[in-house]
């Protein structure tokens, strides 16, 4: 089901039409009650049913119409409307409406037109909103000043024959018809509602010696779908009347515009529910005698016409026969005339169209069927006449109509049969694949050979990624250090001094182990260089231009002039000089001592700097 609004934006006082369409098999539905809508006056304005037949499958839809009259500007949400169908409750979707302020109009100044008014009866209160909608009250029994009389044009009909159900309202009050509170129960009938004119025709009649205003407020065409005895529950109507009862003598005042009753200021209205009594109907089955083979339930009076779109075709080319049935009766429920089994053709249903006309009190219209024939063999052939029978209830007999015989010439073609392009993809021609029963699907019989590797690779990847993370971190640190060093040369020397010293130390140890006398000189030379280099790096002195005095001063500054270690260092420098200039005999132990002094210096300075 769905709900549609004819507009999404409106002005205050402007009518909005709400249609709730229920599609499905059941047409016997109660009119859904609209939820309370703040800021709107709502009116139920009737229902309409449609039945469509496609290939003999019926689908019906019922449309309920409401009129909403916004009372104030703003943005509103129309809450879901519930419809009860059998055990199930369906809901429409929410929709939003935007109301803008009317041009100088006050709320409700527009006459709510869906409320069909009795013409000529003064309606002062219609000019202003009803201040407080009084709860609908059941009309007190015995009030014969207002009543509804539903009547049918005949009480005994044939199946599928039209019955006209009319609701006549008799009143002696100033009355406004507000629609149906409860829809008539019409299960077993196909219903078409006649649209009522805005101004309902009204006449004055005399019943039991009293004068009434009589108006036909609703007209329905009913088509019984099966024989039997029926009781139609006519539902209940809602009317609002002017409160004060009027005596019979007051009838003339009914039309007058008296000061008290006519003044909008004093007008008070009362809602009444009118519950007419049920209607009995007898639906007769079709007479068995003379029932033709081709009879499929059409009742009324019909004409048939047909045409073929071409007289000469090639093999495997489609030719379309269009059959039109028109007339008065249950036009919507007419089935396609049966096509006899044809050996030389493939046949397909193409299209079904129906149009309804409601003229006077009779439902009529036309329904057209398109049938596609595809010749299989070449030569002369003909499309045989199609038979259509209907039952004429007036003459009480069956009538049979035939389409003409269409000869066609089929020319040879080498093309193999193919579903014609215009037919492919049309759901009508292809059978629907449908699930017929429900069960579980079958077991899996193959044991998976390969183990699930996702877990294995996931865990492997985890370790690889940890490794990569480490590498990345190291690279990043290195990158950062290099950036710092490139900006600050002194920092670079200071930071790398220890690394350079330890590399030199390794080299020195190797030299110290050597027993060759010429290596002793090299050793002390290297030792001196390493020491000088280290100290110069640490305090950013020029590595090549630094003098012995500079070194002494720097070390004295940091160690203190009387420091024992300073003396060792100076002693070491002396030893180095000695090895360079003196004649050789420096004991092996001095080398070890030299290395130790160098190591101690590095360690001490590293500690100091921290």
């Amino acid at each position, binding site marked *: 089901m769905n709900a549609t609004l004819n507009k999404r934006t409106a002005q205050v006082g402007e009518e909005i039409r709400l249609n709730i369409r229920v599609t499905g098999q059941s047409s016997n539905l109660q009119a859904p009650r609209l939820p309370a809508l703040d800021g709107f006056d709502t009116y139920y304005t009737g229902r309409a049913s449609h039945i469509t037949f496609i290939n003999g499958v019926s689908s019906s839809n019922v449309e309920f119409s409401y009129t909403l009259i916004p009372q104030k500007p703003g943005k509103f949400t129309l809450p879901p409307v519930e419809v009860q169908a059998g055990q199930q409750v369906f809901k429409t979707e929410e929709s939003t409406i935007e109301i803008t302020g009317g041009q100088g109009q006050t709320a409700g100044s527009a006459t709510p037109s869906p409320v069909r008014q009795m013409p000529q009866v003064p309606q002062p209160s219609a000019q202003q909103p009803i201040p407080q909608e009084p709860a609908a009250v059941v009309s007190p029994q015995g009030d014969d000043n207002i009543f509804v009389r539903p009547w049918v044009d005949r009480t005994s009909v044939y199946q599928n024959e039209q019955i006209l159900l009319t609701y006549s309202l008799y009143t002696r009050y100033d009355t406004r018809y507000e629609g149906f509170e409860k829809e008539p129960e019409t299960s077993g009938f196909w219903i078409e509602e006649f649209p009522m004119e805005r101004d309902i025709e009204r006449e004055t009649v005399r019943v039991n010696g009293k004068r009434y205003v009589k108006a036909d407020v609703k007209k329905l065409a009913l088509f019984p779908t099966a024989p039997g005895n029926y009781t139609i529950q006519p539902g209940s109507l809602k009317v609002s009347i002017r409160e004060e009862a009027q005596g019979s003598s007051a009838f003339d005042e009914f039309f007058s515009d008296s000061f008290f009753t006519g003044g909008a200021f004093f007008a008070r209205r009362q809602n009444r529910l009118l519950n007419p009594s049920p209607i009995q109907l007898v639906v007769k089955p079709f007479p068995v005698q003379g029932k033709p083979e081709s009879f499929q339930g059409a009742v009324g009076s019909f004409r048939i016409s047909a045409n073929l779109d071409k007289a000469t075709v090639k093999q495997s080319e489609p030719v379309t026969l269009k059959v039109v049935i028109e007339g008065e009766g249950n036009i919507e429920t007419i089935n396609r005339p049966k096509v006899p089994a044809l050996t030389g053709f493939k046949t397909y249903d193409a299209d079904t169209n129906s149009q309804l006309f409601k003229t006077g009190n009779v439902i009529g219209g036309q329904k057209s069927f398109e049938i596609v024939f595809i010749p299989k063999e070449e030569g002369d052939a003909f499309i045989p006449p199609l038979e259509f029978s209907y039952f004429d209830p007036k003459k009480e007999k069956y009538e049979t109509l035939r389409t003409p015989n269409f000869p066609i010439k089929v020319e040879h073609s080498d093309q193999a049969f193919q579903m014609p392009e215009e037919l492919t993809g049309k759901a009508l021609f292809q059978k629907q694949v449908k699930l017929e029963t*429900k*069960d*579980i*699907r*079958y*077991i*899996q*019989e*193959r*044991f*998976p*050979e*390969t*183990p*699930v590797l*996702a*877990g*294995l*690779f*996931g865990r492997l*990847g*985890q370790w*690889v*990624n940890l490794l*990569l*993370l480490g*590498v*990345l971190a190291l*690279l*990043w640190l290195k*990158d950062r250090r290099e950036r710092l060093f490139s900006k600050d040369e002194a920092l670079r020397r200071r930071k790398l001094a220890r690394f350079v010293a330890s590399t030199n130390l390794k080299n020195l140890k190797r030299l110290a182990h050597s027993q060759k006398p010429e290596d002793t000189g090299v050793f002390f030379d290297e030792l001196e260089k390493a020491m000088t280099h280290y100290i110069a790096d640490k305090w950013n002195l020029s590595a090549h231009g630094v003098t012995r005095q500079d070194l002494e001063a720097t070390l004295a500054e940091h160690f203190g002039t009387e420091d024992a270690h300073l003396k060792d260092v100076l002693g070491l420098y002396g030893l180095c000089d000695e090895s360079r200039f003196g004649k050789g005999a420096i004991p092996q132990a001095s080398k070890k001592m030299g290395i130790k002094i160098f190591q101690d210096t590095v360690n001490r300075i590293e500690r100091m700097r921290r």
Partner: protein
Amino acid sequence: MKTRVFLGALITLLGVSQFHAFAAQKGGTVFEEANTSYRTGNYEKAAGLYERLTHEGAPVAAVYYDLGNAYVRLGKLSQAILNYEKALLIDPRNADIRYNLNYARGLIEYRVEDSRNWYLKATAAVLRFWTRQEIHLLTQVLVFIFLLGGILRLLSGRDPFWTAWRKCMFALVLIAFLVEFGKHVQDNLFTDAIVMQKECEARYGPSEHDQVAFRMGEGIKVFVVDRREDWSRVVLTNGESGWVKNEDIAEVKL
């Protein structure tokens, strides 16, 4: 040195696959027997054999699925639903498992409305679309790409490190971790469980003295959010929660 590492890895991999092949072969014969029993309508025996297979070797979705089918045939719907759920843990995108699970759910007596927010439903559905291992692998692959790209960039010495591409990659990695965390929460903090008893009472507290909050029937799916010695606190998709006896439910865990 390199060759030795490579060979070692190869042998390990081969060993693993050999082990799996062996397990599969051994499982295969029992599996065949179970299938034959199922085919011939001996569902009781088939269920027993499938049940045995679930305790041996690595979990296989087909075994749980077939076991579920056997239980459907035997009319043990809660068992069937439990095993379908387990099968979905291993093979979450298998349409047959989902179909049969829905079929079995349609047969049980109770129904629970799903009144969770749309985003909760969407998150749960997305997380259920992959297994934990798959999500983990995906995360690791993304992390691998990110790390490798970073290393190459640093080695090449080009600037800058945080290009738009790398930022996107990093965001992806973060999202992947988030998803993995979500999966972890789904698996461990809201463990799925199936009601196994025909009638199960959920109480307001973890004891017989507490009032009954609501009743459930077999096959209903609940989420375990808290545990005591004999009782578990469960939450339903309609938002109700209560304490049930541990013996009344079975957790969907492999």
